[in-house]
């Protein structure tokens, strides 16, 4: 009887793994299909029934995509936007998080409450007025206009406040103060070095978010030279919808940096995502 039951369990376990493997295949399929299609010739893409792996791997789609549209420029723009946003988000989160965690001043509760309360309002709900504001600043079609809304992150501030208030001892900051250190010095030399992990978490989120922004550049950037990968890809798609090979090649180029970041920092990303419940 007991033996029968354990056999039943083993079969159940294998069945579960079979289902999970199948599921894993479904999960990677879109990305795999994108990659293999990017390396196929136009003739092979139009074959019916479709074949999975290209018979002759070709990079013609990649060179073709970069010749047809300034994908190099788009790529650099994406990187630039993501990096500036990441640096700024890390800095502002560190400063605001520390101030909210460790200092007492009138208006603290109100300001922090405001940051939290408005964090759930989706960007899409206030993008129109923001656009109008930037029109009056004459910042439409500028890098600063694209980056401005991504210079700070409410969740970043929240995360840093949690970290600083729970894991940085106030006595340590007091001791530095007794030794004659200024507040900026304490921030840079006491708080920052002890906040590596939390700052890295904030930075990773900011980078993933900054790389993938779409609706805002769609509104604010009309000049092709300012397009990021995301916007460049959609406009390429509308112009050359039949050229699947080049389209997939461009998509691969847009996905690869995130894939590298993810594979390098996989553990940390998954854990941080879990701890903060923050959507990238």
């Amino acid at each position: 009887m007991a033996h029968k039951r354990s056999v039943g369990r083993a079969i159940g376990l294998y069945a579960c793994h079979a289902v999970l493997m199948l599921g894993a295949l479904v999960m990677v399929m879109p990305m795999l299909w994108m990659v293999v299609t990017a390396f196929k010739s136009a003739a092979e893409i139009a074959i019916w029934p479709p074949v999975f792996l290209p018979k002759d791997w070709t990079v013609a789609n990649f060179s073709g995509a970069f010749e047809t549209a300034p994908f190099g420029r788009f790529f650099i723009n994406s990187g630039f936007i993501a990096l500036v946003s990441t640096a700024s988000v890390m800095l502002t989160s560190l400063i605001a998080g520390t101030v909210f965690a460790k200092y007492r001043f009138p208006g603290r509760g109100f300001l922090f409450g405001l940051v939290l309360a408005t964090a759930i309002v989706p960007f899409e709900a206030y993008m129109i007025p923001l656009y109008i504001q930037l029109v009056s600043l004459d910042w439409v079609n500028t890098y600063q206009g694209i980056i401005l809304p991504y210079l700070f992150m409410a969740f970043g501030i929240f995360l840093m406040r949690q970290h600083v208030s729970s894991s940085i001892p106030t006595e340590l900051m007091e001791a530095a103060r007794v030794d004659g250190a200024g507040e900026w010095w304490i921030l840079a030399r006491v708080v920052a070095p002890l906040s590596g992990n939390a700052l890295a978490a904030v930075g990773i989120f900011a980078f993933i978010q900054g790389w993938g922004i779409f609706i805002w550049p769609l509104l604010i950037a009309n000049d092709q030279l300012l397009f990021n990968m995301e916007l460049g890809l959609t406009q390429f798609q509308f112009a050359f919808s039949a050229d699947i090979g080049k389209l997939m090649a461009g998509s691969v180029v847009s996905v690869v940096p995130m894939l590298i970041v993810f594979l390098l920092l996989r553990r940390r990303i998954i854990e941080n995502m879990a701890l903060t419940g923050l959507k990238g």
Partner: protein
Amino acid sequence: MLFCYVALLPIVALFFYVRIIPIGFSFLLSFYKWNLISPRRPFVGWDNYLELLEDENFILALKNTTLYSFSTVLLATAIALPLAVFLSRKSRLSPFYQTIYFLPVITPMVPVAIAWKWIYDYNYGILNYGLSLVGLPSVAWLTDPSIALWALVIMGVWKVLGYNMVLFLVGIRNIPAEYLEAASIDGATDWQRFWRISFPLLRPILLYVIVTSTINAFNVFTQVYVMTLGSQSAPGQAVRMLVFDIYTNGFQFFRMGYASAEAVILTLIVLGLTVIQFSLARDDSAKGT
């Protein structure tokens, strides 16, 4: 104290400029009629809202978005929960599965939407090829309005599944092992242990996941823009969603006030969902103590 204000000033100024002011401005703008350029900007009171109530595109967008959100969230939760339960057991393959299932969460939306569009392609898509293998006719995944919504749901589930899974995994790991052991000693089956012990303890996190992913789903835009708005294929009406409707009214018809009224409704929906979450969470903790 001076330090606090000096340090916070630039950040708070930025915060007000890019978030607080636009949020307030959007409420205000929803009572005006304005095309972005005209010097005339008449106050129209509730007219924009009254017009929305009779706007077929808006009603359709609201219906589609609601159906999309609830279906995506329901499916993604229903799949992620058993997935997380299984992956929470000690297994050498668990990190591998977690990586694979999580992968879509961090990939940018545009390239994966392009990939899905190719998968859904009527003539050359592998999905229709798969159907043909089992003798089923081809489906116009993205051009048939009644099907396109479900095509977006499938993709939406694929994108958020890993995120839900990871949150559930944390919830399951936080359940004290003694509870489950005690239940086993008392002779509870796996099934009973899950429904009687794990599930009630997972309720807060379940609630959180459901509400946040519903909010996110309500903002669906990028994949709609990429997948249903082709230069040749779709007329752009295939699956009208709320943010898409806001975008169209605001930036194609330049009806800034009207689009703002829609944006205000989106904000209110999100606020409503958040209030529901908070009050349910408070109920839970009140019962718990």
